[in-house]
């Protein structure tokens, strides 16, 4: 775990944080994927529906339009044809009436007197008037026919006045005169006021009627005087099988032309086709449906469009159904109806493009609504996207915060615990449970474990401390006991400075603790010196106590004047009396007669003493051994005597000397001991003991010494000179 700027990398907190973050990011990812997928799905569904709806709208609209158009167009075309036909049929009626009247007139000529007539008068221009025109070489005054015909003046005037459709009516006589009624007398006057002449019998209406022999409509003529397109209707009048006159009426086509012109609205118009297939009225200025009255007029049936030809042929004969024809690259809806009077036809033309307009409009409206909806949806989507992004960020922030919070919740108690544990010092302090660790989870268990461990540790430390203190106390007491023990032994040297006849020196070097070795020497009387060396079995306080008892007993019994064997027997008896612990002690006890150098000694299981006689070396004295003291009751010990010549030495020791062991587990041995002593046997008693101790120390070196090292050396110098 590294710490960078106070943030623990790889810590529990970071791990929990990362874990939660990964989980949340995965959640958001799934959420985002689902959202995107749904949005795409929705968009494509909307798009498909859009296309389908548009197609449906187009189809339905087209169908509806076609139906509506069929009904309205064919009806209106028929109506137009009927109205137009009506116009001409009125004229026809008028002309037939005039023809009948004229025939009656000629049939009963004897009943009529000549009727006056006049040339056109300037003052009559603009008002309905009756006047006469004539061919250049014809004099109206000579014409009997005219004089008779003039009787029709009132009838013609009445007819003209009554009809709003007629632009004029007239009677041409077979001799070249023309009786006219109209309100345009002015136009028949030359600038000088004289009347203009007219080739009456060369006018198309005249000869066409004569040729036909019955009522006939001329083609569209340009009026001789006004230049206005005019349609004339004429019928010949016969009297007794002889042509006498031709009656007629003319209609200015201004009104029908204007009407047709007015029908032109955007993309649709009416046109009129004559029996030759020529377009005679049309608001069109260009193209196939342009009106053409000249010789260059095209027959619509002969321009190479079969469908159009078929349609026109049909229209001239009967009402056609709505027909869709492509003309010069544009599709048109057409209906037609015949004008039976003239053998013409009215054709209604609608650019198909126009009929699509409602659909287009509807579509555009639909598209507009749709696009509004779409943009609303998109802005909504954008809004929701923003909301999603914002909420995602919010969720992330919240998640981070809660992750940190949770991680903190987990880590904080741990950190606090770590801090508390690190802060623990001294034996008195213990880790205590705190509310911060009451998390109801493993942390609480951990904290409780710590607390219990800490308590146990503290108790243990206390115990250890007590034990240590106890040990120290015991150690101190043992050290004290060792001192007391050592102090019990005579340890002031030279021990008998006033006695030149002998010299005694002894040392006891305890091992690690108080032991059971002891030495002793004491004057029993002026000439007897008691010498003791002993080794109690075992170590420690029991051995020390046993040694004390033994030492005191030996000395006490020795002071009563008993022999060495008697002393040991008494001591053995005393010790065995109260020796449940089976302790025993090896004792060598001897009494030196300072006058003679004779030593009387007894040995209760102790090491052989070493003796140096005169100028020789030290040798072991294999004396007679008895059993150790304390082993059995009622033991008998044997004494032996040994006489030291002046200058001789006696060396006593415990098994600590020969049994001193080095690191290689070798024993120092009696051999080495004797060799050491014999390096300089003449040396002083203290020097000898020092040598042996040094030799043992060198031998043992760094191995641990288990046993006490106790030695005693006596030098006999010979009896004191009696003063």
């Amino acid at each position: 775990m590294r710490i960078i700027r106070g943030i623990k990398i790889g810590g529990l907190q970071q791990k929990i944080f990362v874990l939660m973050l990964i989980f949340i990011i995965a959640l958001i990812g799934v959420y985002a994927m689902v959202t995107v997928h749904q949005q795409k799905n929705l968009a494509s569904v909307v798009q498909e529906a859009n296309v389908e709806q548009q197609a449906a709208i187009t189809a339905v609209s087209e169908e509806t339009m076609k139906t509506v158009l069929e009904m309205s167009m064919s009806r209106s075309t028929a109506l137009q044809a009927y109205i137009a036909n009506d116009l001409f049929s009125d004229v026809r009626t008028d002309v037939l009436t005039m023809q009948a009247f004229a025939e009656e007139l000629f049939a009963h000529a004897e009943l009529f007197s000549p009727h006056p007539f006049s040339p056109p008068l300037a003052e009559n221009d603009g008002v309905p008037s009756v006047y006469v025109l004539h061919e250049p070489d014809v004099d109206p005054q000579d014409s009997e026919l005219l004089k008779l015909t003039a009787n029709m003046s009132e009838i013609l005037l009445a007819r003209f006045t009554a009809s709003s459709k007629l632009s004029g009516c007239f009677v041409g006589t077979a001799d070249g005169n023309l009786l006219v009624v109209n309100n345009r007398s002015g136009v028949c006057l030359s600038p000088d006021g004289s009347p203009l002449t007219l080739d009456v019998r060369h006018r198309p209406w005249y000869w066409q009627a004569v040729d036909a022999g019955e009522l006939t409509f001329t083609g569209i003529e340009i009026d001789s005087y006004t230049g206005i397109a005019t349609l004339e209707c004429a019928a010949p009048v016969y009297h007794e099988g002889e042509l006498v006159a031709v009656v007629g009426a003319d209609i200015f086509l201004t009104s029908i032309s204007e009407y047709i012109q007015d029908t032109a609205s955007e993309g649709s118009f009416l046109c009129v086709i004559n029996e030759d297939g020529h377009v005679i009225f049309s608001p069109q200025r260009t193209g196939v449906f342009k009106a053409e009255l000249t010789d260059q007029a095209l027959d619509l049936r002969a321009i190479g469009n079969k469908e159009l030809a078929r349609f026109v042929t049909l229209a001239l004969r009967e009402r056609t159904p709505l027909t869709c024809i492509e003309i010069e690259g544009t599709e048109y809806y057409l209906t037609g109806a015949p004008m039976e009077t003239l053998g013409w036809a009215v054709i209604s033309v609608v650019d198909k493009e126009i009929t699509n307009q409602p659909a287009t409009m509807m579509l555009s409206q639909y598209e507009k609504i749709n696009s509004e909806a779409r943009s609303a949806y998109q802005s909504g989507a954008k809004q929701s996207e923003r909301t999603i992004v914002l909420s995602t960020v919010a969720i992330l922030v919240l998640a981070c915060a809660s992750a940190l919070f949770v991680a903190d919740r987990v880590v904080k108690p741990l950190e606090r615990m770590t801090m508390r544990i690190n802060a623990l010092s001294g034996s008195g302090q213990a880790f205590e449970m705190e509310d911060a660790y009451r998390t109801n989870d493993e942390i609480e268990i951990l904290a409780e474990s710590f607390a219990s461990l800490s308590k146990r540790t503290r108790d243990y430390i206390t115990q250890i401390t007590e034990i240590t203190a106890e040990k120290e106390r015991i150690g101190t007491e043992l050290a004290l006991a060792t001192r007391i023990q050592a102090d019990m032994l005579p340890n002031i040297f030279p021990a008998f400075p006033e006695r030149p006849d002998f010299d005694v020196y002894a040392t006891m070097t305890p091992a690690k603790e108080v032991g059971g070795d002891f030495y002793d020497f004491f004057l029993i009387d002026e000439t007897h010196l008691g010498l003791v060396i002993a080794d109690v079995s075992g170590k420690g306080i029991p051995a020390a106590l046993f040694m004390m008892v033994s030492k005191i007993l030996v000395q006490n019994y020795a002071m009563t004047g008993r022999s060495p064997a008697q002393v040991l027997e008494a001591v053995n008896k005393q010790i065995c009396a109260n020796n449940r612990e089976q302790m025993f002690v090896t004792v060598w006890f001897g009494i030196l007669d300072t006058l003679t150098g004779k030593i009387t000694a007894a040995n209760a299981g102790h090491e052989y003493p070493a003796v140096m006689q005169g100028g020789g070396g030290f040798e072991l004295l294999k004396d007679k051994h008895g059993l150790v003291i304390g082993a059995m009751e009622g033991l008998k010990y044997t004494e032996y005597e040994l006489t030291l010549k002046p200058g001789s030495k006696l060396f006593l020791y415990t098994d600590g000397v020969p049994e001193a062991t080095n690191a290689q587990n070798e024993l120092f041995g009696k051999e080495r001991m004797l060799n050491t002593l014999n390096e300089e046997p003449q040396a002083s008693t203290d020097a000898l003991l020092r040598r042996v101790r040094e030799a043992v120390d060198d031998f043992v070196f760094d191995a641990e010494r288990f046993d006490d090292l106790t030695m005693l050396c006596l030098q006999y110098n010979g009896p004191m000179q009696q003063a």
Partner: protein
Amino acid sequence: MLNIEKTIDASELTITLAGRLDTTTAPELEKQLNAALDGITALTFDMAALEYISSAGLRVLLSAQKIMNRQGKMKVLHVNETILEIFEVTGFTDILTIE
């Protein structure tokens, strides 16, 4: 270190000692003896591999000898020279049956 091996044949117990019988190892032998000596009428110590015996060890032998004096007999086998010398010096040769 001391290795203690016990072989019981009915009421006869043989204890084979190897190593050093001293202050530190004697208590263990004493403990084992106290636990094993009930009903034993013949106790044998085999000391062939015993290197050293200290006064503490002698004390255990003495205790055992005293117990066996009451309930049977005890003998010591294969005592080497060092051990025998210790037995002689301490006078144990007088009370032990050494064979």
